[in-house]
């Protein structure tokens, strides 16, 4: 909430072109119930103008080879920046990707990005979709060429970073500034846990309790992920997508994927790296009855010879009721994060 207010206040002054106003304080604020951020803020000081530049880039198809795809094509704010329409998102020339587009929020707290964690610093995240031939199919150098030929961008970048040509460092720093401010910390759960006036219903309260016993082992902290990579028993083998082992080149990581946050989970279906589950019910049915053995299966899902997590139907309903309290309406409704075009 603090963050939204800061941006709003800053937004009012940002529109004046004639006289440059004194720039109001524009800073990243850590929600009190979150762990410390890991982003290297000292190398990329946030400014209102930098944020706005990053926002524009996020919504601009100039990043793609044929000018048809922007980040927002697959990451829409009303769905907590996930893809509302596709199991596998669609890139240039209707090419289909091979993993489900994850939502975007609370990136300042993440050490690893993408389902396989191949990128270990936020600044480098946009390069991946820009250069992936199934997504934007472009290259950083050609994006920079286009930005430098564009009057708006060349002028704005000069204003924000004080250099005559847009380079990859400025461009990626601007994008990080926008992405960093996408903090989701104002769900009903947050208002409950911070004593801000939300009371859990009986079912939600039972769900929270069950969640602590059966889910928080991996979906830990108020980020609702421990940031680790785990094999959650989707398949007996992983020839289609080796997951984390593609990055580590270690058989011990076969079939492991990043534990996703469960914030805004009601908005981000379908679920899993391949979007195989359409509903939260299907996800919980997987954990209770569908877990399949393979050598790298997470030990938590294979205890005393029993695969999965025992869950009754009532328990599933209660957990789902709790998960719905993780939806952050003020985050998805924050027009400061919307399309500026």
């Amino acid at each position, binding site marked *: 909430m603090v963050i939204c207010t800061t941006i709003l206040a800053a937004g009012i002054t940002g529109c004046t072109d004639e006289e440059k106003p004194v720039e109001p304080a524009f800073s990243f604020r850590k929600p009190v119930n979150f762990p410390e951020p890991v982003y290297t803020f000292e*190398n990329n000081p946030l400014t209102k103008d930098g944020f706005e530049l990053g926002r524009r880039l996020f919504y601009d198809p100039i990043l793609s080879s044929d000018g048809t795809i922007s980040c927002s094509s697959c990451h829409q704010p009303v769905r907590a920046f996930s893809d509302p329409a596709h199991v596998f998102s669609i890139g240039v020339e209707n090419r289909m990707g091979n993993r489900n587009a994850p939502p975007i929020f609370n990136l300042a707290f993440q050490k690893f990005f993408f389902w396989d964690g191949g990128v270990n*610093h936020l*600044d*480098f995240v946009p*390069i*991946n979709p820009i250069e992936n031939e199934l997504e934007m199919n472009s290259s950083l150098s050609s994006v920079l060429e286009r930005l430098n030929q564009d009057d708006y961008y060349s002028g704005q970048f000069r204003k924000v970073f004080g250099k005559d040509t847009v*380079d990859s460092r400025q461009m990626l*720093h601007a994008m*990080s500034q926008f992405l960093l401010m996408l903090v989701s910390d104002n769900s009903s759960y947050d208002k409950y846990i911070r004593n801000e006036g939300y009371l859990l219903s009986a079912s939600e309260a039972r769900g929270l309790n069950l969640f602590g016993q059966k889910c928080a082992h991996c979906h830990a902290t108020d980020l609702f992920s421990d940031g680790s990579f785990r094999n959650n028993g989707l398949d007996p083998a992983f020839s289609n997508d080796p997951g984390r082992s593609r990055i580590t080149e*270690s058989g011990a990581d076969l079939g492991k994927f990043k534990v996703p946050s469960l914030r805004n989970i009601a908005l981000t279906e379908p679920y899993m790296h391949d979007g195989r589950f359409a509903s939260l019910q299907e996800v919980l049915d997987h954990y209770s009855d569908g877990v399949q053995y393979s050598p790298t299966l997470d030990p938590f899902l294979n205890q005393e010879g029993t695969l999965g997590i025992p869950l009754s139907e009532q328990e599933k309903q209660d957990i789902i009721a709790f998960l719905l309290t993780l939806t952050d309406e003020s985050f998805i409704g924050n027009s400061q994060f919307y399309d500026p075009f």
Partner: protein
Amino acid sequence: MAALLLSIVLPSCDNEENQPSGSGTVTVKFDNRVGDTNLNLDTEDYPYSNDLGQEFKVSMLRYYISNVKLKRTDGTYYEDEVSDDGSKGYYLVDEANPESTELNLKNVPAGDYDELSFVIGVDASRVTEGVQTGALYPANDMFWSWNAGYIFVRFEGFSPVPTETNNGVIYHIGGYKSDPSNPGLVDNIRERKIAITEGLSVKKDANPMIHLKMDLLEFFKDPNAIDFSSNASRHSPAACTDIVENYVKAFTFDHIHE
């Protein structure tokens, strides 16, 4: 930590102009060769052969050099300045860009030196500190987007031998991650130490050049014979460990220009 600070502070002290003996610029020339002949890019035919007798030609050869040091005869070091944003101390040698094959080490204190050392590659801090500048711009096409990190050495060429790759021989070599709990992660960062057998004498306002030879044939020779007929397109740290073991020796001292 104290040692680290010292090592950073020392060379910058040397850079002070009030050094009584003064300082000069030392140029390090990387002369890319193939055995006894000069490396030529994009030739019509296949002028070169590896140790297995497989012919090849070269379309691209680029590599990162960093953390350059000169050892004095008294055992102390001059260290090339490395800046926080990567703009200083990292060099991208590109055979297609002759200027890039000469590194200028500035403010080298006068004195006698007998060893040059450098890292082939880019250390982890340049990734974990976020996007960098200078030679480390990610837009230089020496960066893995899907497995974030620099490509240390990028070799691309053709040979009649491989068929699966339309005759392409492509080795993108990187890998800086290490984690004791994960033996699968490959750290391909290598330091090369090269004795300056003639000795290097740096004097005030002089600009001597250390002429190094970089023999591409060494990439494919010893101790691991590299066979172009299979696995000819390599794009991951573990896939290239054999070439890395070979190429450290490719860099050798040739002579000094005063």
